[in-house]
């Protein structure tokens, strides 16, 4: 006789607690109750008759006994009482079913997963009916799918529902979980059965201290395979319309292979390479293509091998937008080379009479005029008339020497001039929060104002850069470039797109990057946990998806959709048992009693309620007044 769910001690403790509660409730139910009655004259007579007859605390002992017996039966049912020596006959097995990405590889008989499922089902069917089985799906993580289950049909259903995932096998972790699952069950340990092709991730090994009850059902795997490991896209540093593509391909097999790598963008081919892949080695290659448009870029290995899932990768390339600037000026020619030199800027020149407060653009430049309505876009003001300048003009000076640039701010980053003397310049009185970009000895001559609730960003120049001595300086186009980057920084982000495998991702970041401003977000917009160690940023993606990393002026998009293929083939030691054991199907020597106990317990409680329940008492007593009244009325009528 044994209990499946509770130990004998737990059962006794539980029954003791339940009995105490039932007994207390029983006494409370039958305790002396207070009643207010209209008179005591009839009660006094009843008292003399009953007091001698009853002085018992427990007035309905059979009710209590019935309740306690029923509770005991129900507790035994919960404990799943079984008749027979379970310890000697039944064992606990753990089936580790390999669901790593490699199990999706095809053979002549189907996929490796099909073979693994067949082997696992054969093992479960070979077990005696009383043996319990726990199914563990093993890939990058070990996930128990069923508890230790004596219902083999449920285990078989879970095996059939198992599919390959995207991560590589972590066999050590799976074996550790299996050993822990078997421990502390108080039963005879069965086998820990690994079913799979035993290809583990490059970073994972297999421990040398394997459990003695480990059994392997190997799945014959093809060895020749090559696949895309990584793709990287970034904008060219020199050509704005150009994307540089980096592709890494690995030959997982033992023979040298020749594979054709083809790239397409928006369905059109953009390049191809013939790669000679050395056995068990990576090979990288680069491509370049020009486009401003957005679309899907697909890399494909035109090589028929067993595992097709890693032969194709797709990346979504964003459209390259340029900054649209409207310049309101009477003299467009001096400004054209300044703005035209920046390939990411599209300038449109209009006369001041065509001024609109909110034109269809990203920013505007106001050259020496004051608009009728304040602009609703970020704006750059060049020599505004002093009376209505957005930043108050303190004075207008002549022969002002430009003495200092604010190189610490993005607006003044990299700007230098030497002995630059301005013919005339407006000296501003900056407000609180304004940024002094360039200063003379008399005061600031270029001021930036960050965005407020009511006003977009603006920059005011107290002199005309291309009409002054500064027009010959390199600082002039850089000043405009800085100003435009400051007003719309998101358009000037450095893009980097990567396609890789799920798991841990590492990326290098600039050491000067503000760590507080780093954001790592998933495609659902949720923050992904990450760590920064020196110039390395790490994060983990357990499921396929897209992760976006924004660090400083750089945005990296990781399309983690490539399957992680195990690189190392685990050599199963000789001492490890193999194949399906010949245990034979035994008839169950253990009888489950809990259904009968549950039924008996329920019937006991029902009987107690029918015989002694409060409702029953009330119903029995409610009939008495009716009889008495009828008797009286009949008496009156007669």
């Amino acid at each position, binding site marked *: 006789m044994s209990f499946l769910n509770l130990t004998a001690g737990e059962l006794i403790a539980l029954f003791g607690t339940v009995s105490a509660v039932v007994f207390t409730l029983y006494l409370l139910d*039958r*305790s*002396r*109750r*207070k*009643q*207010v*009655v*209209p*008179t*005591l*004259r*009839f*009660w*006094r*007579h*009843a*008292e003399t*008759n*009953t*007091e001698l*007859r*009853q*002085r018992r605390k427990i*007035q309905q002992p059979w009710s209590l006994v019935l309740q306690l017996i029923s509770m005991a039966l129900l507790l035994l049912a919960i404990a799943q009482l079984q008749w027979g020596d379970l310890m000697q006959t039944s064992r606990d097995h753990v089936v580790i079913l390999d669901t790593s990405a490699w199990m999706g590889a095809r053979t002549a008989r189907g996929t490796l997963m099909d073979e693994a499922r067949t082997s696992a089902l054969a093992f479960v069917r070979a077990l005696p009916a009383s043996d319990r089985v726990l199914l563990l799906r093993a890939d990058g993580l070990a996930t128990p799918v069923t508890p230790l289950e004596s219902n083999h049909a449920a285990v078989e259903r879970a095996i059939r529902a198992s599919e390959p995932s995207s991560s590589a096998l972590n066999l050590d972790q799976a074996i550790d979980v299996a050993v822990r699952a078997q421990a502390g069950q108080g039963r005879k340990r069965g086998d820990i059965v690994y079913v799979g092709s035993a290809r583990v991730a490059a970073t994972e090994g297999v421990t040398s201290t394997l459990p003695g009850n480990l059994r392997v059902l190997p799945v014959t795997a093809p060895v020749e395979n090559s696949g895309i490991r990584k793709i990287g896209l970034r904008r060219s540093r020199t050509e704005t319309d150009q994307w540089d593509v980096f592709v890494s391909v690995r030959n997982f097999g033992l023979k040298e292979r020749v594979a054709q790598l083809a790239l397409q963008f928006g369905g059109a081919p953009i390049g191809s390479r013939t790669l000679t892949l050395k056995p068990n080695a990576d090979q990288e290659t680069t491509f370049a293509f020009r486009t401003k448009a957005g679309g899907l870029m697909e890399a494909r290995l035109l090589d028929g091998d067993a595992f097709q899932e890693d032969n194709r990768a797709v990346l979504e390339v964003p459209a390259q937008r340029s900054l649209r600037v409207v310049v309101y000026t009477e003299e467009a020619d001096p400004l054209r080379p300044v703005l035209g030199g920046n390939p990411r800027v599209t300038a449109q020149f209009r006369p001041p009479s065509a001024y609109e407060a909110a034109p269809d653009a990203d920013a505007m430049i106001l050259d020496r005029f004051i608009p009728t309505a304040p602009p609703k876009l970020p704006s750059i003001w060049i020599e505004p008339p002093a009376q209505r300048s957005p930043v108050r003009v303190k004075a207008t000076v002549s022969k002002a020497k430009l003495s200092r640039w604010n190189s610490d701010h993005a607006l003044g980053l990299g700007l230098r001039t030497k002995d630059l003397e301005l013919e005339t310049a407006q000296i501003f009185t900056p407000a609180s929060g304004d940024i002094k970009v360039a200063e003379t000895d008399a005061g600031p001559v270029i001021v930036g104002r960050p965005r407020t609730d009511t006003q977009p960003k603006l920059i005011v120049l107290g002199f005309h850069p291309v009409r002054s001595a500064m027009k010959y300086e390199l600082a002039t186009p850089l000043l405009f470039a800085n100003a435009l980057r400051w007003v719309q920084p998101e358009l000037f982000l450095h893009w980097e797109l990567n396609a890789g495998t799920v798991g841990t991702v590492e990326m290098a970041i600039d050491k000067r990057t503000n760590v507080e401003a780093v954001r790592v977000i998933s495609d659902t917009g949720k923050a992904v946990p990450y760590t920064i160690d020196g110039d390395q940023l790490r994060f983990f993606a357990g499921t396929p998806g897209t992760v976006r990393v924004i660090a400083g002026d750089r945005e990296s998009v990781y399309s983690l959709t490539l399957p992680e293929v195990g690189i190392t083939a685990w050599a199963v030691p000789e001492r490890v048992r193999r194949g399906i054991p010949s245990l034979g199907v035994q008839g169950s020597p253990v009888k489950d009693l809990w259904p009968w106990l549950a039924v008996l317990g329920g019937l006991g409680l029902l009987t107690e309620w029918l015989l002694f329940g409060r409702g029953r*008492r*009330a119903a029995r*007593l*409610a009939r*008495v*007044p009716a009889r*008495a*009244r009828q008797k*009286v*009325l009949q008496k*009156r*009528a007669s």
Partner: protein
Amino acid sequence: MARTSDDLLIDRKLLEKLERLTVRWRKSFAGLVGGHNLSRFAGSGQEFLDHRHFHQGDDLRAVNWRAYMRLEKLFLKMFQIEPRVPVRLMLDVSGSMRTGEIDKFLYSRRMAAALCYIGLVRLDTICVQPFSDHLHDSFLCGGGRHRFVPALEYLSKLEASGPSNFLEVTRQFVANYPQRGLLIVISDFLDDGDSGKALQYLADFGHELMLVQVWADEDRTPPWDGELDLEDAETGAKLELTFDASAREDYARQFDEYCDLLERVALRSGGRYVGLSTAQSLEDAIFGPIIQTRVVQ
């Protein structure tokens, strides 16, 4: 539908049925012409009855002078006597009326309201006299059906509390109301004193008794079992005892014997008795047991 703030609700249909009823009594009371209906004897009433020849000593104010002018004979106009039999309704407002799952006090007040309505419709005057261990302030209910709302308001404002003392109440009642008449007593008659003796005294004094005993089912057959800690609703006296089915039978027998005693007191003096359970609806009670007693017809 007549209703007050204390849920003293009487359905309109029931009121319409009550309009067909009349409060009646059997006895002839000293100093009054008996019977309920207008007397067939002439007297100083409002309603014309007949003419007769004038005799010496007759009241000249009753001579029909128009007939004398025409016939030159003196005829006297005779009028119907309007009897003044007092109908008094004693309503128990002691604390015991508040016990029971269905409120006996509310039931009794609804019964009193119904009887008042019957009287008002027939232009009778009913004196509602609440009592517990003494007589409370009474209310004279008369003047037609439009006076029913004040009667309801008076009944709704009554509170049940304190002990009952029938002997003391009887003594005060006899002293306050020397004129005999129909006396309807609505009570549970559950006090620790000898209420039978007090009622007998009222009957011997000459009142026609109509005893309406109202009880809750718990009063007749207590539904509880086991150890009981009982408290008298009126006196606060306490009693602990063990109660079972056998004791319940003893209790019920005692209760029935007490009811029989009350009935005997009523019947012996020409009165009537009716016992009502609060489980019985008011309409069933009036048009069943109460009509059978012929206090209302």
